[in-house]
């Protein structure tokens, strides 16, 4: 199919999705109202749950940005068909910054290191990094960087919608994507330290930034697979263009990300377990006792073993609806993982699940999904003028 033929196709997001957008808004609104009630009942718990939900959706938005830049750098048919989906994800980062306001306002309630009465020698030693003004300034820098990258990438890529060749634009995007990815990785690693690791300010692990990085890539990739699946159903134009080989590639990539996640997690666990140093091991001691261990075990089974075994056989990877189910499972497990990382910091002595832990991800998710769908509808689903699109669409058809 030539670029001019493609330009004639209706490559917009389905009309019916506008309705889903409204539904998402309603759900988000109701859940936010519930959270508002929760805020007056228990302010501490409100912030803890809000952090959980916010981290999940931030991971999704940022993962889209990371994957998009990676795709521009490496190329590949798998990414040509999801570029616009990732792009829509990046355009939600401004909303995530707004939704993060409760965390930034409530920093003194949420984080131990910000409370003078909990100060000790170690915390005083790192107060040069862990203090409220610097924490907020860093958050501003991270979001400034992410929104800046998003703006440029999205601005330049609009000219790829016309069916002609734009080598200059593509070169410009590629030139940004390299250094952009480096800055992105650094900023994401430090954001993970600030927002999650510093919940237990005595604990530290040098691999944590990388673990957070692969987690958000895993989240965004699973989510994008799900969106692409629904875009290709019921004879929609994308269904004609995207074939099983694209899904096969995306599934293989998901398999790789699952393995990297397991590799990082296992490495961290083994090194800390074998070192058995009091300042490090406490993190795992808390998380592997008082009922918290079941979350750890469920991660091992459902975020590693089950996806690993199901994504291994080649024929399973061609089964798009199975890949969708695995992607859905991983998304659920991402939330469980975040809960397992954050909640035991507040309740080290007993398992504790609050109703707001369920409501907060839904509240933030409602706003996020509706914004994502709005952004998705503003542009065609494929960059018709991108070089290599034709080959990418013929993928596996030789």
């Amino acid at each position, binding site marked *: 199919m030539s670029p001019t033929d493609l330009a004639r196709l209706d490559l917009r997001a389905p009309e019916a999705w506008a309705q889903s957008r409204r539904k998402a808004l309603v759900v988000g609104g109701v859940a936010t109202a519930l959270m508002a009630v929760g805020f007056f009942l228990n302010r501490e718990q409100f912030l803890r749950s809000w952090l959980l939900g916010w981290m999940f959706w931030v991971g999704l938005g940022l993962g889209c940005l990371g994957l998009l830049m990676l795709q521009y750098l490496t190329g590949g048919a798998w990414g040509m068909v999801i570029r616009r989906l990732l792009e829509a994800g990046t355009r939600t980062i401004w909303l995530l910054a707004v939704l993060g306001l409760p965390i930034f306002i409530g920093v003194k309630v949420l984080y131990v290191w910000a409370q003078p009465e909990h100060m000790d020698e170690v915390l005083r030693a790192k107060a040069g990094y862990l203090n409220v003004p610097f924490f907020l300034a860093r958050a501003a820098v991270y979001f400034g960087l992410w929104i800046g990258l998003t703006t440029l990438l999205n601005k330049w890529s609009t000219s790829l919608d016309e069916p002609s060749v734009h080598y200059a634009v593509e070169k410009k995007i590629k030139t940004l994507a390299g250094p952009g990815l480096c800055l992105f990785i*650094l900023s994401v690693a430090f954001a993970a330290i600030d927002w999650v690791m510093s919940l237990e300010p005595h604990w530290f692990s040098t691999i944590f930034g990388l673990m957070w990085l692969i987690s958000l890539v895993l989240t965004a990739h699973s989510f994008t697979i799900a969106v692409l699946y629904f875009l290709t159903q019921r004879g929609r134009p994308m269904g004609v263009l995207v074939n099983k080989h694209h899904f096969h590639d995306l599934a293989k990539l998901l398999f790789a990300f699952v393995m990297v996640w397991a*590799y990082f997690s296992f490495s961290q666990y083994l090194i800390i377990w074998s070192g058995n140093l009091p300042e490090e091991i406490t993190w795992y001691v808390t998380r592997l006792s008082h009922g918290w261990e079941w979350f750890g075990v469920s991660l091992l089974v459902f975020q590693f073993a089950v996806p690993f075994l199901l994504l291994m056989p080649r024929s399973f990877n061609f089964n798009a609806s199975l890949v969708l189910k695995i992607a859905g499972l991983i998304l659920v497990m991402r939330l469980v993982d975040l809960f397992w990382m954050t909640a035991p910091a507040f309740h080290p002595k007993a398992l504790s699940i609050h109703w707001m832990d369920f409501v907060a991800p839904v509240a933030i998710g409602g706003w996020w999904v509706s914004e994502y769908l709005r952004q998705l509808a503003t542009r065609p689903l494929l960059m018709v003028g991108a070089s290599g699109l034709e080959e990418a669409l013929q993928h596996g058809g030789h």
Partner: protein
Amino acid sequence: MTIFAVACAGMYPILHMGRPWLAYWLLPYPNTMSLFPQFRSPLLWDVFAVSTYATVSALFWFVGLIPDLATLRDRAQNPVARMIFGMLSLGWRGAASHWHRYETACLLLAGLSTPLVLSVHTVVSFDFTIGIIPGWHATIFPPYFVAGAIYAGFAMVLIISIPLRVVCRLEDFITEKHLTNMASIMLATGLIVCFGYAMEAFFAYYSGNLYERFMLVNRMFGQYGWAYWCLLLCNFLAPQVLWFKKFRTSPFWLFVVSLIVSVGMWLERFVIIVTSLANDFLPSSWGQYIPTRWDFATFLGTIGLFVSLLFLFLRFLPMISMYEMRSLLPAAKVNGGKGAHGGGHA
């Protein structure tokens, strides 16, 4: 290269044990003296990781050579050479069934080797991290060592292949595009390694731990401070020129950068091993490491062994897979795309 490097690497721990004739004690063999290795020690995992890696790499290498060995057999003038190549080619006749099984075997071995590259370097990093000395006990070590290995490996491939393609006139086989792609991989893995340095340095501060912080200051400004700054120069600063196309496409500059990176990767090991051991928890056990002539002899000796093995290989066996090159020729594409496709995979 892999096999020769593993052969050299394997010598170090064996010599290091002090009584190399008792090396078999490392293996969990049935014995009557109740000597049994400690299974919780990564040093023992190393025995398995390295020997598995060596076995699979050797198999992969040998299986990859079989069709070429058959060609050598068919073309050999010397009857002794013909007999040796004949035995090594395992009765290869180039039948369709041979190719079919061959491609499956290559794919499986490639699939097996990939995780082994990870496992072998991960276990090496565990050797360090299980020792709780500051500078060794860092959770980022596994990915950081794997990236470092790929980084150093590609630098070494470039160091060998750039002169080789000029001397042996292989410019049409090892093209500039290959070199440029290798340069990109070097840049990417090099940046991951530098991310590791950054995280180590930051966490030394962030830990708030006296010993961790001392480790960092000592690395930067202690008796071996020069090594740390040279390391950053070689492994971080120098490869940044690879961002520019001019350097990525120039074999001369790639060769220079690869040499610098190889020195940098040596310095990295020096910094990690020596600075952490020279100044550990107890000031009473601090010291300065001065290499003896045996240290130099072992290092130079293994370099010599590596180069000799490599040259022997280049002399007697095809350095570029002949059958893969054949399948890349235009004629092969016309007659059957399948061969070219399979060759690409292997």
